[in-house]
């Protein structure tokens, strides 16, 4: 019995020592060694069993103490399972790290800087040939009555490939307010448009990048909670909060070619420099779908009115405003995303004209003194005050996947000068003739309008806010198919009858990668009386097929 107790005691000592690490030296059966192995907190170890015959009770106590210590040690001992667990976590980390390295997910830039861009590659086929320069008839006209002697020559072109536009942008946080979300963000973007060369379609366009967006945005109210109201200020060059299409970034528009009002009426379809406040209020938030729906949003701002990348040309700051009402609903409602909006732009433009160049006889100049020669006096530009540049719009938006419908009505009022000295002819067209002097100049208000209606049918994940954020090992390709039809009717001058331009577009968009889409637009254009292109011409029609790859990076 005594030997058994002694053997157990020794075994327990060894176990207890082992539990504290394999590096500990073997423990000799003496009190000093026990104290050393277990550190200062270990209970004092009684003398060994062979110290004397009166130690049986002492040994029992010692065994009890050792048993307790072993038990305590085992409670905190690292097991094989724990090691496996650490190994598992380490393997997971290594996998994640490697994948982040492989897929470039590791962000090293400051302030969450994002760099990206969009490139537009086009192929275009038109039913009528396009001609330009050196006596070639210009396009659109049914009979070649307008000629140009400018060079270079474009003769009989019906189809072409274009790099229509390439954009590059940088955006991110300048100041991130982690506590409230009152962030200061920025965006700067530039584009190159070799496909839109104003000096001639076949002139080598080596123009550098042109600035498009350059603005700061500050959130006045906390934005961490998506159910909260928002008020923000945007300062710099930016899209105008007018209507639907004008304030949609180019990469988000379903139709390749913008609506006519955005191109023809100017201003609302281009960027301006100024300060614009925006807000959204009374947000009903459906947490089950992470879907917020503000009852109304608004925007109010002052801008130069001079156009993109241009300084103001007068001291009047143009005003722009928009109010939008949205039916408050849960996500799974048929009236989800029904919005009604009104927009207004109130501006002024300089009224200017030019006197024609004239020839005069100047006897004081010439090859020999006193020899009269004829010299040319160049035309001069005169200023005739300011005129209005106002636009008003109404729009309806409905987008309940897979169906969508939008409608916009725009009316624009522009003052211009015309020659009030004209007599005879059709008075309706007299205002189209430019005055030759300030004395003959008279102000004329041209009123134009545009109706744009678009219907969509689409299926796929591209238009879902949350569902497209998915866990994937590599990239994810949310294939989405969208069919649409748009009717766009533009009247350049309501005082002239039957001068509208109607454009019917049947389109198909295919998103075959997250940021890349293929767009096909079949366009039928009808120019009544030449429409905005050429006055006094018979109605002509033109068909066009436009194919565009739009890829973002």
């Amino acid at each position, binding site marked *: 019995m005594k030997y058994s107790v002694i053997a157990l005691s020794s075994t327990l000592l060894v176990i207890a020592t082992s539990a504290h690490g394999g590096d500990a030296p073997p423990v000799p059966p003496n009190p000093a060694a026990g104290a050393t192995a277990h550190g200062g907190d270990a209970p004092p170890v009684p003398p060994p069993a062979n110290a004397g015959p009166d130690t049986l009770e002492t040994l029992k106590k010692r065994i009890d103490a050792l048993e307790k210590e072993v038990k305590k040690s085992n409670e905190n001992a690292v097991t094989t399972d724990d090691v496996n*667990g*650490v190994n598992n976590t380490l393997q997971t980390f290594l996998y994640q790290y490697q*994948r982040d390295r492989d897929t470039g997910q590791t962000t090293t830039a400051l302030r969450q800087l994002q760099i990206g861009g969009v490139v537009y590659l086009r192929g275009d086929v038109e039913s009528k040939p396009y001609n330009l320069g050196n006596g070639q008839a210009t396009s659109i006209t049914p009979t070649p009555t307008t000629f140009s002697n400018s060079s270079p020559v474009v003769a009989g072109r019906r189809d072409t490939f274009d790099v229509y536009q390439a954009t590059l942008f940088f955006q991110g946080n300048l100041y991130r307010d*982690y506590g409230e979300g009152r962030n200061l963000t920025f965006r700067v973007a530039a584009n190159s448009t070799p496909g839109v060369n104003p000096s001639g379609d076949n002139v080598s366009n080596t123009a550098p990048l042109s600035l498009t967006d350059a603005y700061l945005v500050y959130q006045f109210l906390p934005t961490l909670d998506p159910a909260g109201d928002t008020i923000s200020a945007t300062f710099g060059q930016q899209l105008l909060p007018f209507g639907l299409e004008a304030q949609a970034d180019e990469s988000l528009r379903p139709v390749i070619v913008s609506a006519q009002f955005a191109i023809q009426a100017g201003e609302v379809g281009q960027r301006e420099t100024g300060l614009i406040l925006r807000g959204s209020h009374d947000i009903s*938030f*459906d*947490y089950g779908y992470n879907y917020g729906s503000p009852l109304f949003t608004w925007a109010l701002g002052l801008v130069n009115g001079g156009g993109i990348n241009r300084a103001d040309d007068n001291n009047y700051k143009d005003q722009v405003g928009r109010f939008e009402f949205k039916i408050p609903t849960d996500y799974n409602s048929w009236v989800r995303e029904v919005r009604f909006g009104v927009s207004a732009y109130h501006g002024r433009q300089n009224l200017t004209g030019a006197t024609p160049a004239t020839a005069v006889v100047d006897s004081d100049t010439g090859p020999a003194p006193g020899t009269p020669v004829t010299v040319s006096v160049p035309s001069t530009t005169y200023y005739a005050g300011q005129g209005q540049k106002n636009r008003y719009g109404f729009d309806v938006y409905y987008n309940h996947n897979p169906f969508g419908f939008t409608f916009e009505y725009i009316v624009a009022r522009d003052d211009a000068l015309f020659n009030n000295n004209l007599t005879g002819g059709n008075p309706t067209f007299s205002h189209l003739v430019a005055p030759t002097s300030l004395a003959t100049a008279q102000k004329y208000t041209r009123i134009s309008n545009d109706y744009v209606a678009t219907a969509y049918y689409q299926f796929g*994940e591209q238009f879902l806010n949350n569902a497209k954020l*998915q866990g994937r*090992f590599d990239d994810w390709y949310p294939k989405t198919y969208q069919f649409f039809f748009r009717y766009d009717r533009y009247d350049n001058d309501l005082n002239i009858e039957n001068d509208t331009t109607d454009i019917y577009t049947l389109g198909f968009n295919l998103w075959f990668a997250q940021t890349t889409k293929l767009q096909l637009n079949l366009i039928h254009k009808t120019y009544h009386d030449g429409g905005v292109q050429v006055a006094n011409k018979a109605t002509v029609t033109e068909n066009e097929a436009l194919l565009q790859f739009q890829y973002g990076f």
Partner: protein
Amino acid sequence: MIRILHLFTAALLLASLASAADYPTVIRIGYPGVANDNYSPVGTATAGTLAAKGILEDEFKKEGIKIEWTFFKGAGPALNEALANGLLDFAAGLGDLPAIVHRAGGITTEVLATNYRGQTTYIVVPNDSPAKELKDLKGKKIAIFKGTNVSLSWAKILKDQGVQESDFRTLNLDAGTSRSAIATRDVDAYVGGNDVFQLRNRGVGKIIYGTPGRSPFLGRFSTLNVVDTFEKKYPDVVQRFVNDWVKEAAWGSKEENRLDVFRWWAKNGQSWQDYKEDLGSDTLASHLSPLLDAHFYSHFTSGIKVSLDNKLIRQPFEVKDWVNDTYLKKALKEQGLETFWSTYDDGGKLAVKGVVQ
């Protein structure tokens, strides 16, 4: 002879059409979450191991049916959005609140089985916070991922602790952002699952509240749901799906597989040790039971009421109209598992002891 050939061809065509009608070309399954890296498609519980092991892929390989798992970074709300837009056939592991919300909103799914029950909820505060209990956080900023089943548990915790949501400034932040906000002390507390352990382990947070050891009323449920049109069109496919579900739940419920289960779950980046700590002495079977018992019914009935009281839904509905347990019953019977799991009463207490503990 030619006529016979034509008849044979027509018969083949009809047979192939009939076959195509019996099976879908793809089965689309949504899971409400991704791994801790906010990217990798990994899940936990029965749905998680079913996906990770490729069990359904094997099951339907013979018919050439593609299995398409989608792991939503936006959790339950994102899965609901996909359901509402007809992009899913099954929701595997959908939390109680998102499931209640989509059903109350008119999306007609059927509950086929339970995925996980008694999921824990914790409240973590920055390490140097003086708060020791929930009441100490009155007037403070609390981060919570609203719309997930944590927010239903949160509503119940408020009731249990005798406080109201208006006593706090709650911010709707996803789990990853909430953890970051605790580390940067931009919020005063975060209500989450066992992912809060990593904050404590890193020494940046301390846990002041946890549901383990408290009323079963506070635990979270997740379920397996099928879109009713799919269920009506492909009942055989649904049965085979549920058969695999039950088989996998039975595997996960056996204690001898405990470490293997944690190994599969830990692929989401959550520490193995966290699962051990979170489950504590609970048996796996008590959490992975697929049964639709009295506890399931009482949990969802009270969940509907709490959701209504907190204006998370506008219309109540009956749980019994939502549940379709025919597939589960058949699977249990065929696999001899009718008495395998314990059943719990409407208070969450043990009612009938099962074979597996």
